[in-house]
């Protein structure tokens, strides 16, 4: 996020502070610390006052079986996310290839499909596969009822990310491939796409975050993912707040690590000079992150 030819703005916003500014900053720091402590204290007090700090709500988390059950749910989440990711990549690639094709009707069709998948909420696709598809006689296992809609809602973004990578490959590459006698498709698969793919690895990893987030709707279709298993735990142990908090933290950690991996990939790309990467068009994959 914070990579720019000027560097991080925060380095330039203020210079070495003078005596008076130092004092102002110290006072502001102290005041904000006090306020933060007060808010934190209020939160803890609220937990304590309502009895949510009682050992009975947290005891289940020192049991091994609890974690094993949650881990099984997590495995479900990761399986669904991985399958959705693979399908989204395959579909996204096809949509991208169609969108840059020579045929105008194919371009129009793929553009429309991409815009459609990007403009419709994942939940609506899930309801389609959960409620509407059975009416059409399509019977699917819960695993597919969650992974297919998640893949559909991700594939449009994947297509746009891949396309921005293809556009970032210098024109000369294709011309050189033509000059040594490659056919169009040959040049694309052997020369252009391998480079484009490397440009967009970070963006593709970030897209995985969205895929993982979307799989939390698995409870709608009764697929045993992390969230669904948490609900089972809650109905057995009456520890709602603690369980949902723990699960939220697990999700946050997974996505945090994915984001870190994406940053690391971006940094590696810059350092190894894979990218004398021409300015990538931003905004293709961004904004879909919510």
């Amino acid at each position, binding site marked *: 996020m*914070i990579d720019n030819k000027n560097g991080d703005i925060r380095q330039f916003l203020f210079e070495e502070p003078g005596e008076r500014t130092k004092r102002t900053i110290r006072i502001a720091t102290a005041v904000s610390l006090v306020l933060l402590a007060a808010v934190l204290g209020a939160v803890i007090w609220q937990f304590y006052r309502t009895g949510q700090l009682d050992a009975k709500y947290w005891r289940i988390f020192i049991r091994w079986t609890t974690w094993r059950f949650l881990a099984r749910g997590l495995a479900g989440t990761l399986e669904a996310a991985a399958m959705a990711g693979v399908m989204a990549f395959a579909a996204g690639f096809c949509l991208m290839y169609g969108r840059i094709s020579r045929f105008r009707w194919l371009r129009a069709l793929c553009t429309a499909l991409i815009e*459609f998948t990007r403009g419709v*909420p994942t939940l609506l696709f899930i*309801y389609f596969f959960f409620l509407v598809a059975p009416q059409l006689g399509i019977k699917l296992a819960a695993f597919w009822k969650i992974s297919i809609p998640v893949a559909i809602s991700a594939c449009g973004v994947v297509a746009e990310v891949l396309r921005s990578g293809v556009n970032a490959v210098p024109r000369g590459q294709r011309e050189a491939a033509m000059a040594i006698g490659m056919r169009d498709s040959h040049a694309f698969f052997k020369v252009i796409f391998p480079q484009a793919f490397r440009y967009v690895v970070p963006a593709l990893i970030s897209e995985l975050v969205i895929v993982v987030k979307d799989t939390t709707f698995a409870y709608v279709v009764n697929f045993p993912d992390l969230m669904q298993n948490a609900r089972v735990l809650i109905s057995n142990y009456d520890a709602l707040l603690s369980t949902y908090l723990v699960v939220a933290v697990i*999700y946050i950690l997974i*996505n945090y690590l994915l*984001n870190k991996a994406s940053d690391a990939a971006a940094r590696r790309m810059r350092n190894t000079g894979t990218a004398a990467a021409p300015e990538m068009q931003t905004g293709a994959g961004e904004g879909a992150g*919510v």
Partner: protein
Amino acid sequence: MSIQALLTQFGDKYVQALFTTWKLTATSFALAFVLGIVITVMRVSPVRPLRLLAEFYIQIFRNIPGASLLILLVYALPYLDMIFSYYTCVLMACTLIPAAFCSEYLLAGMNTIAPGQIEAARSLGLTFLQIIWRVVLPQALRSSVLPLTSLLVSTMLTTALASQVPLNPQDLTGLVSYINTHAVGGVTAFFISAALYCATAVVIGQIGSWIDRKVRILR
């Protein structure tokens, strides 16, 4: 079910649902935008605890799934004696998460500003907040119109969370599930909602790129 039959039976519900989705989207985006600016200013401020708090906020709300957050707000907060209406809970979820992304885009926008401008502003005697308010933020906003436009679209997609709680009137996604559990709405019910979402997204995108053309800073 044919499209006519569906619209005679559920037409006004679709209108209400569309307005619910629009209202949720507009309100939560406006709130997220303000919150995003506040967080961004905290992130670049010279006060360390504020910076850390803001970074913490970003990491939490960038990474939490919407469903997880909504469930916490709806079902867990009452255990802490904090009870909000379903609508407020959805609104909070659709504000807290986009605010984190808004701040990310604004910070990226700030990074396009040349350091010389800050130095120039400082040599004019502007204070930190004046530099932020008069020099940095306006330019950051102008260069992040496109990401903010797609943020508005994804805020709209996030409001589909409203279908997970009982709301009256329902949103576009909730209505599809309602129709399909009360009648055999089938594919048509789905496609009407999908088309309304898409049309909204397309209009937002058009307006966004029009604004971007007007205000973009050519460097």
